[in-house]
C-alpha cells in the first residue's frame, strides 16, 4: 500500500470531522437551522474529497522538494525545519496548556517558565526570576487592575473542595 502524504492525512481528518457535522446538521428539523451547517460542511466534504483524490493521484512525490534535475530530495533537513522540531515545540506548548488547566495560572506559569528556560540554557536563578516576575505582572494587571479572576486549575479546585467541603 502506498504511503499517504501528510496533506492526505490532514484531508482525511477534515473529511471525517465535516462528515460528523454534516450528519448532525441533517438532524435539525427546521430548514433555516440546518441550511448553513449542512451547506458549508457538505461543500467542504466535496472539496476535500476532490483535493484528496488529486493528492492521491499525484502521490507523495508531489509534496517532496526536487533538485535541478527534478529528482526528489529525500533528506528532510534540506527541506527546512524538520517536522520533529515542530512536534517538540508543540509538546512544550501542550505541556503549558496541561499545567495551566490542571494547576491554574498562578502555579503553572512560573513552573513552566522555569523548566522551559532552564532546559533551554538559562541559568536557574534567571529562570526563577523571570517566571515569578511574569506571574506577578499578570496578577497585578489582570486580577488587581482589571478584576479578572485567574483560572485556578481543576486540581486546585478539587483540592479546595476536599479541604473546604
Amino acid at each position, binding site marked *: 500500500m502506498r504511503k499517504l502524504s*501528510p*496533506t492526505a492525512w*490532514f*484531508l482525511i481528518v*477534515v473529511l471525517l470531522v*465535516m462528515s460528523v*457535522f454534516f450528519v*448532525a*446538521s441533517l438532524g*435539525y428539523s*427546521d430548514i*433555516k*437551522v440546518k*441550511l*448553513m*451547517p449542512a451547506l*458549508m*460542511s457538505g*461543500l*467542504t466534504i466535496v*472539496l*476535500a474529497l*476532490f*483535493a484528496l483524490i*488529486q493528492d492521491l493521484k499525484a502521490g507523495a512525490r508531489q509534496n517532496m522538494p526536487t533538485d535541478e534535475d527534478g529528482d526528489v530530495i529525500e533528506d528532510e533537513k534540506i527541506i527546512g*525545519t524538520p*517536522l520533529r*522540531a*515542530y512536534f*517538540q*515545540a*508543540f509538546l*512544550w*506548548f*501542550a505541556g*503549558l*496548556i496541561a499545567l*495551566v*488547566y490542571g494547576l491554574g*495560572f498562578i502555579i503553572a*506559569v512560573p513552573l*513552566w*517558565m522555569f523548566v*522551559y*528556560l532552564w532546559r*533551554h*540554557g*538559562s541559568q536557574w536563578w534567571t529562570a526563577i526570576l*523571570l517566571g515569578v516576575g*511574569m506571574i506577578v505582572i*499578570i496578577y497585578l*494587571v*489582570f486580577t488587581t487592575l*482589571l478584576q*479578572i*479572576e*485567574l*483560572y485556578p486549575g*481543576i486540581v486546585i479546585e478539587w483540592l479546595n473542595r476536599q479541604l473546604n467541603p
Partner: protein
Amino acid sequence: MNTIPALLQAFGNMFQPMPLLAVFAATIISLIVGVIPAITGALVVIMVLPFLFGADPIVAMPFLCALLASSGMGGAITSVLTGIPGDNANGPAAIDGFAMTRQGQAGRALGLAIGAAVMSVLFGVVFSILIIPLMTPILMSFKTVEMLLIILVALLFLAVLTKGSRVKGLISAGIGLTLSCVGLQQASAIARLTFGNMYLYDGIEPATVLMGILAVPTLLELQAEGVAIAPVGALAAGKLIELFKGTKELFTKHLWTWLRGTLIGYLIGIAPALGSTTAVWIAYAQAKQASKNPDEIGKGSPEGIVAPESARGVCASADLLTTLVFGIPGSSIMVVFLAAFLMMGIQPGPTLVIEHTALAFQMILTMGLSVLIGAVICYFGAPFMVRITQVSPHMLFAVLMPIIVLGAYVTREFGVDIIVIGITSLLGLSIKRFGFSAPSIILGFVMGNLFERFLVRSLDLYGVGLFWSSPTALVLSSIIVISIFWSPIKSQIERMRGGKVAAKGQSA
C-alpha cells in the same frame, strides 16, 4: 445649529485643557493596552464605562473616542513585531508585517502600518464631517443581499488566491464557515453542532481561533527554527529614519492600495453590523486580488499591511458616524458607545446631530487628534520596540506563550478555552505546514454568523434571484463569477500565448 459654527465650537472644546488631557491620557492607555495581545480596545472601553458615569460629555465622549482610535495602532505594533495580533482587526498585519520583520524590515513595516492607519483615520475624520448630509442614501444602498454578496466576494477573493491550490483555499473557508455554526443559532436559539456539550453552546471564541491559527504556529516555528525574529543587524531597521522611509513608501508606491483599503474600510464601517474585523480581511483579500504579485502577499508584502491597516483605521470613524447619525451600532463596540450616550443623557440618532452638533463633531475630530498623538509616540518609541526582534526565540516563546493562553482565557473566563487554544493551534500548525489558507479560515469563522443571517434573510426575500435582485447585487454577483473563472481563463490564455511564442521561436 449651523455646520461651520458647530465645527468651530468643536475645535474650541477639543483644545480646552480637560478634554485635551483626557484625549492624551486615553491615547497612551489605548496604545499600552493595544500592545498587549490579551486585551482589546473594546474590552478597555467596556471597563472604563462605569467610571464615566456622571462625567461631562465634552470630556467623557472624546476620552472614549480616543481609546477607540488608538488601540488598533498599539495592536499593529505587536502584530508587526511578534506576529501576535494585538486585536482581532490586526490579523492581516500580523501575517505580512511579521514576515517583513523576519526579513529585517521591522521599521519599514511599522512605518507603513502607522502611516496607513493615521492617514486613513484623518481621511475618515474629514470625510465623515463632509458626508453627514449624504449619509442616508449611502446607508440605504446596503441591504441584506448586498452585505451577503460583499462577504462572499471577500471569501472567494481570499480562497481562490491561495498559493498552490484554490481548492485548499475554498476548503479553508468552508472549515471556517462550518466552525462558526457551532453554538446557539441567534435567530432560533437552537444549539447546533454542540453534541450536548454545554461549553459549545456559546460557540467557539473568535480570539481563541485567531490566536491558535495565527499566533501560536508563528511562535512554534520560531522555537523550532531556534533563531531570533529578525536577522542580526536588524536593529538598524528600527531607526526613526526607517520608519519615515516606510511611511514615505506609502505615498510613493502604495497610494492606490491605501485608497482602496480606506474606501473599503469606510463603506464597511458605515454599514451596520459588519465592523473592522470584516473590513480588514475584505481589504486584504482585495489587495491580494488587485496586486501585481499576489503570491507575495502573506510573505511580507507592503500591500498586505497597507490595505488592512488603512481599512482598520478608517473603519472606526465610519462606525462612529453611523452610530451618531442613525443611532444604529455599526459594530459590537458601538453598542457600548450607545450605552455611554444614554448614561450621559444623550439620545443618539438624527436628533443628536441637530441638538448636539458640536459634540458630534468634537467626537469625530478627537479620533484624528488621538491618532496624531499616537503616531508621534509610536514613531519615537519604535527604535526601542524593535529591540524585541533580537530577543532569543526561547525567551520570546517562554514569555509570549503564557500570555497567549491567558488571552484565550480572559475573553470569556472559561477554563475550557485553555484546551480549545491547543486544538485551534494544532489546526493552525497543520494548515501552515500543508499549504491551506489561514486568512480564509479566519474570515469564514468571524463572518459566519452574519453570512448565515444575511443568507437566510436574502433567500426569504428573493429566493435564488438574490444574485440579481438589485443593480448593486448584479455587479457584486458578476465580480463573484469573474473571481471564480478569471484565473483558469487567464492561465489558459497565457498557455495559448506561450504556445504561439514557442511556435514562432521554433519557426525562426
